[in-house]
């Protein structure tokens, strides 16, 4: 019988992480996306990052909106929690979930349509709030799910599959996030897991909101020769502005080698370190203005600037800003959370 179920067979030397799980234990259902979709590679990178970080599957919450990209949480970590929200509403739902249960690790997976059109306002406020989450934009320049209309990230003059040019200026999620005060901003490419996986790992441990914009070609509607979000275009124009490794907390940090340009170590809130092995001259990944300057200089060149571009682990996240209790609200007994009308009456009485 023909089957498209992934065999349970594994490689004989498959390794286990410190929880005893293999990378296969972080997989989800079989993808129903088009074969060759960049989104599937990002899924594989997320699986990899979570396995390497040994995140317990039941401590993960996968959040998404609507779109091919928003379908992908079904394809990783079957054992995690998840919420598939209305179009563009994932940031609000995640803010609420994070407020209620701060013990979980949150990943939101969205598309350029879901985040930059209908959900743009939601995205902006999640950034402002510094909601502790990894926010992945699987950016293909089109609305894949609805058959390839231009999205707000499409470049001027890039053409649709039928040859129609795009006339409107794009919204760049990276510059947008920097402007709004985001504390972790990166861009990568679905076809480069060597770069993407360490960025995702750092983003997962980041104190607050981590935005990772991943160019993720839509093979069906936007991988043609006049697209600026195709595999070939991205490969040809991708510039690795920064090169970084993620060094987990317990691991010793070896003196960094910087083959071209200078390097830097940024210690994250939990004690792990992002080790930049290569940075452009005069570039400081913790200095927002310089990063914005650098990006400014590269706009309009056609280059796709990638890397972990900006990180600031010193800004308080949503919980710290709002002085929420250390204990997750989900752990507070019901009677205490909702002490009843009498207690409320008494409280109001006190303020009279």
């Amino acid at each position, binding site marked *: 019988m023909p*089957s498209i179920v992934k*065999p349970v067979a594994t490689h004989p030397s498959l390794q286990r992480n410190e929880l005893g799980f293999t990378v296969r234990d972080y997989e989800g259902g079989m993808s129903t996306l088009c*074969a060759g979709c960049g989104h599937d590679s990002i899924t594989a990178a997320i699986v990899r990052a979570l396995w390497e970080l040994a995140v317990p599957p039941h401590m993960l919450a996968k959040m998404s909106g609507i779109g091919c990209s928003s379908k992908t949480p079904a394809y990783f970590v079957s054992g995690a929690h998840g919420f598939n929200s209305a179009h563009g509403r994932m940031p609000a739902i995640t803010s609420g979930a994070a407020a209620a249960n701060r013990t979980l690790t949150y990943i939101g997976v969205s598309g350029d349509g879901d985040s930059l059109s209908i959900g743009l306002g939601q995205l902006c406020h999640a950034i402002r709030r510094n909601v502790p989450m990894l926010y992945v934009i699987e950016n293909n320049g089109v609305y894949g799910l609805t058959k390839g209309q231009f999205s707000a990230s499409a470049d001027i003059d890039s053409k649709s599959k039928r040859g129609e040019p795009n006339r409107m200026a794009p919204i760049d999620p990276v510059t947008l996030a920097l402007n709004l005060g985001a504390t972790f901003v990166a861009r990568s490419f679905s076809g480069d897991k060597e770069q993407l996986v360490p960025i995702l790992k750092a983003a997962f441990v980041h104190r607050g909101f981590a935005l990772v914009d991943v160019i993720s070609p839509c093979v069906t509607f936007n991988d043609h020769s006049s697209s600026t979000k195709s595999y070939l275009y991205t490969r040809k124009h991708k510039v690795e502005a920064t090169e970084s490794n993620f060094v987990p907390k317990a691991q010793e940090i070896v003196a960094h080698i910087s083959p071209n340009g200078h390097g830097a170590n940024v210690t994250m809130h939990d004690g792990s370190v992002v080790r930049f092995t290569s940075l452009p001259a005069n570039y400081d990944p913790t200095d927002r203005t310089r990063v914005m300057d650098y990006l400014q200089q590269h706009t309009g060149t056609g280059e796709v600037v990638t890397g972990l571009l900006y990180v600031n682990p010193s800004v308080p996240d949503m919980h710290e800003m709002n002085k929420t209790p250390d204990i997750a609200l989900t752990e507070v007994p019901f009677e205490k959370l909702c002490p009843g009308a009498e207690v409320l009456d008494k409280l109001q009485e006190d303020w009279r």
Partner: protein
Amino acid sequence: MKLLPFPLGSIPGSEAGSARGPDKAQEAWPKRPGRTRALKPTDVRDPNYFHRVVDCQWACPAHTNVPEYIRLIAQGRYGDAYMINRESNVFPAILGRTCDRPCEPACRRGRLPEPGGDSQPVAICRLKRVAADLRGDISHRLPPVPAKKNGKRVACIGAGPASLTVANDLLPFGYEIVMFEKYDKPGGLMRSNIPSFRLPEQVLNDEVAMILDRGVEIRYNSPINSLKELLAQKFDSIFAGTGAPRGKDLELPGRQEAAARIHIGIDWLQSIAFGHIDSIGERVLIIGVGNTAMDCCRSSCRLGGKDIRVMARRPRGFFKASPWELDDAEEEGVQIVVNHAPKRFIVENGKLAGMEFERVEWDAGARKSTTIDTVTIPCDDVILAIGQDNAFPWIERDLGIEFDKWGLPVVNETTYESTRPGVYFGGDAAFGPKNIIWAVEHGHQAAISIDNYCHKLPVGERPPATMNLVSQKMGISEWSYSNDYNPSHRQKMKHVDLVERFKKLNVEVELGFSAEQTAREVERCLNCDIETVFAEKRCIECDACIDVCPVQCLTITRNGEEEDLRGRLSAPAVNLDQLLYVSAALPQTSRVMVKDEDVCVHCGLCAERCPTAAWDMQKFELFISYAGEETCNKQHESVPA
């Protein structure tokens, strides 16, 4: 936490890529200086490449197309499955019970971890028996033997599997075969030594008759006592398939005095087979722990032995017997006694009373032993099963046939020709005792040589093997083979119960697989002949295949030397005998697609998830040439999987 090396280097390789279809306008990827000793693209048109991926077929001395016959069994096409077998191994029913099965330790399934159990190969041999038992009448499918002969006469000495194979291969081409057999029945050791509780006489008779009844002139009770005389009879060619007929003796004190109760294993088994012996004492010691010893101890169980011990010099793990034969013997109550070195036969009142052994201790590799003490074990009979020797008293030494220092004829390993052109050796007679499947393969090869020799062609000119690759794609998510991975464990053979099986000497112990067992076991086969074939020009390096592969077979990386490249694979190979499949430079980045063939489960998901059909699943079929066949045009029925 140790991390696996991550596969994807984003470093562009050396050569400029050829632009893919509509994107020709885009310039080539930036160049890097040329790299030395990068791996060359794999040539999948070399028949050996994919043959090697089909582990079982590669390991089988006769290269039986195992996955094909397993699929045919799955479809209930037992006759077809039998014919596929018969073409390469000639005796499927016999081998389905007795084969040494070198294919099974090689089977890919045995390298894959099974959830909650040991890794176990597919029960290839048992499935062969299923095909044979259920085949129905296939007599009309045997290659026809022409009434008009080709005028060439070939003498085969001995009627064992080697000679029978030579006859099988040459008959259809009009050869006259005259077979000389010392005894009054054909089959060689398959009849005289393999006990009927493992190989029923009827099964042996059937498959031998399939050859002899098609026109072999067989002369029983006709030992060849002089090769010179046979040569004088002007045969066009002579094949010696006389086996290794002499059992080794053990010259220890007491051997002569106790001779009446000391038996040479292979002679003793033959006496049972020919009805000359029907009993043995209650206490039996078997010296040696090879497969002959297993047949001796189990035969003793059936002839009145009660306390039967197989005395081994070395510890477990160093025995020559196949593990399944040891299991079967122990199931029948035989004791395997390790670390006992025989010292002398104890004779009392002119009769065998027991044997003295040194108890020994071995070093880790069981190379050096030290004696602990001496023990005596009383017994009524001793059976010596310590090996076989060749003997060629019937070959005069002045015929131009050279012998080596071990008394074996000097035989060419490819052509099986002796140092006298026209005289060939095969089976146990060629290189000492082996097994049936090797005897068959020697027979095939010798037949090719004889055919060449009779046609005045150089015997070294071997017909090449050819191959075919056919896509198995039927439609979206539809493959013509069962690509599903079945997690069932290997099916256990059921045996006749212990009381029943000892009632008669010839009760076949193994019951064969039930229909349910067969249905499960066939699905365990991974179809290693359905190959992943790569077309680099189509690849857009989207990683879909790499991400979906359940066993991390695939990597896109820059080319390099093999060792370096192996270090960059998604997962390290466990078995280095399997090769790397390396593509030419990929169009976008000039990196290469590398596939480690080691543990691919042939699930087809890489091809299923590839947007450009750069990967395809194609059925590999190897066409082996036999004697007399026009090379290349040999096409046996190709079956959709």
